[in-house]
């Protein structure tokens, strides 16, 4: 019955690897987001998708490629992982772009 879910919750990997984080929402929302939270708790938006279409891309390296197979899913694929990619990644969703955003539990990515 989780509204916004992410998998995996923890991800530890070596530099240079490629990894994916999955996000699903069962709220019927049409807009989904990815945020990055660094070690100082600073939250910054990365991407926003509305009805599977990319709306916002906040100067994220093209090693990050979001994919939205349908309105309920927004996955994040990261190529050639770097140490600086270590962070907690949050998925969120909202109904329309002007309403409250609901956040998932986060995925803690550690790049060694």
């Amino acid at each position, binding site marked *: 019955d989780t509204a916004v879910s992410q998998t995996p919750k923890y991800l530890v990997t070596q530099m240079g690897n490629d990894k994916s984080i999955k996000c699903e929402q069962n709220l019927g929302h049409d807009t989904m987001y990815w945020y990055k939270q660094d070690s100082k708790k600073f939250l910054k938006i990365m991407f926003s998708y509305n009805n599977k279409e990319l709306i*916002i891309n906040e100067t994220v390296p093209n090693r990050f490629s979001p994919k939205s197979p349908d309105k309920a899913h927004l996955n994040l694929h990261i190529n050639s992982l770097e140490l600086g990619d270590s962070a907690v990644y949050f998925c969120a969703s909202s109904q329309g772009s002007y309403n*409250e955003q609901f956040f998932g539990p986060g995925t803690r990515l550690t790049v060694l």
Partner: protein
Amino acid sequence: GESVGLHLPTLSVQEGDNSIINCAYSNSASDYFIWYKQESGKGPQFIIDIRSNMDKRQGQRVTVLLNKTVKHLSLQIAATQPGDSAVYFCAEKIYYNAGNMLTFGGGTRLMVKP
């Protein structure tokens, strides 16, 4: 550049006391602000919001005050409880033609002493 920021990184209060968490913003065009609560190991959770045409908005045990003159936002929590211990973020909503994005402040950690 324009940003949303917080005055205090950590606030420690006694259980039962009132808490006040402050936030300064510099984008005078911002017209919508939100407070989020993030507990350890969880995602941010919406607490309360306020639009720029309001000065004050009350929820259950929480009140948000907006002072547009000095670009200041505060969150007041009445009768603080141990369950209120978390990191609190203020965020402003910036609108694009096709949507919006949230710009978050740096967060304030609230610690409630029993």
